[in-house]
Every structure is written in structure tokens, then in C-alpha cells.
């Protein structure tokens, strides 16, 4: 009887076959919709810091290095892969990839650093977002500085948000003598 039971068990297990995955030796893809490591597209990112402000675990940092460079540091160590950064990103620069094999012995291996080229504010001298659609900013990124008021007037006419009132304001515009504290 004992032997017969064993034979029956063998038959049952033979029917079902081998279900064990040969995982580490064969690749296994994540299912569709899986949120793995977020990946930044540095060609699209405008450095608006929306992802840094809304990250629940605060793993995304943005710092201004100098007037032109803003650095985005993503430290994956305490990331919960919620996908909020990818939802928020206005330029769709963040994609949640299907990479999940992230095990390391060094925490630095799962960081991402993006150096962003920013515009410099002519008033305060700090970084501000590069607006790609603005032709004035495009000129500025090519190295053109519109310090001369005569040239500036000409450029103003070519911008997308041109209006006669705005033109009048820019004609009589003067730089402040001293910055207000």
C-alpha cells in the first residue's frame, strides 16, 4: 500500500512536469506594466525639479552647481518605484523601465546623475528652466546675450508671445540701478 501510494505520487508529479524556472541561467522578462528602475532622458529634461519635489522617498536631488549647470542626482537606494516622477514629468523625460536586476554590493552603482544645462537669469544670476519653444532662449543657448537694448527690441518682435503692449514696455525698459534687497 505504501509503495502503491508512492507510485501514484510519482505518476501525479510526472503528469504536471517540471515547473521550476531555470531563472538565473535563463533571462526572465518582467510582466507588462511592471515599474522597474526609472531612467532619465537627458535630452528631454528641462530641470524643472517636479520629480524632486514630488518624490515620496526624497531620492531625487537637484542642485545648482554654477550659473549654467544644474545637477540631478537620483539615488535609487530608497526608491519605492512608485512611478510618480514619470507621471509628473512634463516633458516625459522619465520612463519606468523593466529592469529589476539591480542587486549590488555598492550603493553607488544604482545612482544616476544628470548634468543639465540651464539658462541664467539676467536679473538674479541663477538658473532657470530652459524653455525649448522660446526662440529667445534658443538664441541665448547659442551664446547670444541681449544686453544691448536696441538689439533686444528687435528680438522681442520675433518671439511667440509678441504683443504691442509688451513692445512698448520693452522700449522704455531700463535696467535697475541697484538691486532691491
Amino acid at each position: 500500500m505504501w509503495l502503491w501510494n508512492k507510485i501514484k505520487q510519482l505518476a501525479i508529479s510526472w503528469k504536471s512536469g517540471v515547473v521550476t524556472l531555470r531563472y538565473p541561467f535563463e533571462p526572465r522578462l518582467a510582466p507588462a506594466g511592471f515599474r522597474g528602475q526609472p531612467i532619465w532622458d537627458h535630452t528631454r529634461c528641462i530641470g524643472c525639479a517636479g520629480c524632486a519635489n514630488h518624490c515620496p522617498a526624497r531620492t531625487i536631488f537637484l542642485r545648482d552647481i554654477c550659473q549654467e549647470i544644474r545637477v540631478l542626482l537620483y539615488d535609487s537606494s530608497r526608491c519605492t518605484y512608485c512611478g510618480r516622477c514619470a507621471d509628473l514629468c512634463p516633458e516625459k523625460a522619465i520612463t519606468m523601465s523593466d529592469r529589476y536586476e539591480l542587486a549590488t554590493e555598492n550603493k553607488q552603482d544604482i545612482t544616476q546623475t544628470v548634468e543639465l544645462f540651464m539658462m541664467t537669469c539676467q536679473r538674479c544670476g541663477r538658473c532657470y528652466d530652459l524653455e525649448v519653444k522660446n526662440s529667445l532662449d534658443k538664441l541665448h543657448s547659442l551664446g547670444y546675450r541681449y544686453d544691448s537694448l536696441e538689439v533686444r527690441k528687435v528680438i522681442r518682435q520675433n518671439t511667440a508671445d509678441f504683443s504691442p503692449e509688451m513692445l512698448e514696455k520693452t522700449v522704455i525698459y531700463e535696467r535697475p540701478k541697484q538691486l532691491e534687497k
Partner: protein
Amino acid sequence: MWNKLVDKAFLRSVWVYHCNSGACNGCDIEILNVLTPYYDVERFGIRLVGSPRHADAILLSGAVTRPTLPLVKKAYQAVPAPKLVFAIGSCAIGGGCWYDTYNVTGGGDKAIPINYFIPGCPPRPEAIIYGVALALGLVDKKVAPVELKQMEFPVDMYRQAKLLETNNIIYKLLGEEDDRLTFGRK
């Protein structure tokens, strides 16, 4: 020849002790999932044991909370000397969303030394197997730090900014001149 065979037969059999230090049970369920016949880890000689004294490795899950901190330390000390610690899940690695809360140590890193980090919230069972297989030398590491740049400058802007800050007296007074550019990397 005999010694090599013995090495191959006996060395790479890791008995793990599952240490929950205040996790939400997400990572624990995934660890249990690993032990099922579907992801059969006894192929690699990995077994779950009940006592840290029998174990070679600790699977630490959860941000180490204040009540569990002495217990985690005791469990770590109870493991015999060549020991590995796997931090599983984002809580055990860096503290998760609770990295700066009053009642949380801020990750297993601050309680006990950790050898391998397995990120995920929770990590997939495959990710856990991958992490342990990485420690056993069965697979290669697939991640590396990524550094992207939008524009390459002809001059070293980091050095320029650094010089500007070191020459400025305000940053000296604030004492921030060191960790401004390193982002805690050092």
C-alpha cells in the same frame, strides 16, 4: 582533485535566516515566494533556518525600527563569523519613505554592516534570487552608476564654481564648502 570536489560540494550552500525588522510584509511574502517549488532555491543549496546560529546569511527586510534595533544587532552577532547580510527592499537599504522619521534607524546600513543590496519595493522573487546568485558568483553584476550630460563645456565648470565658492567668504562661514559638490558621495 578530492579537495576541489569537496569545495564544490560543500562550500556554496548558504543557509539563510530571515530577519524582519519592521517591514510591511511585502518583502517577506516575496522571500517566501522564493522558497516555493516555482523558484526552487534549494538548487543552490539555499535553505531557510529558524535560528541565526545555524545561518550563514541574513535576509534583512524592513527599515530597522527603534524597538527592533537591539534585536537585529543581537541576531547579527549570533551568526557565526563568515557572514553575509542581504538588505532586501528599499526599506532595508535606505529606509524607504521613512528614512528620516523619529522611530526608524534609517535603513539596515546604520544598524549592521550590509554586504549586498537588493532594491525593489518589494523586489521581485527573481530579483532576490539574482542578488543571492550574485553573492554566490553565478551571475554578473548588471548595474553601474550612470552619468549623463546635456552639454560638454570647454572649461571645467565644477572647478570654476568650486573656486568661486572657496574664494567667497560666505561659504567659508557656513562651512558648506565640502559637501556642496560631492552630494554626500565622498
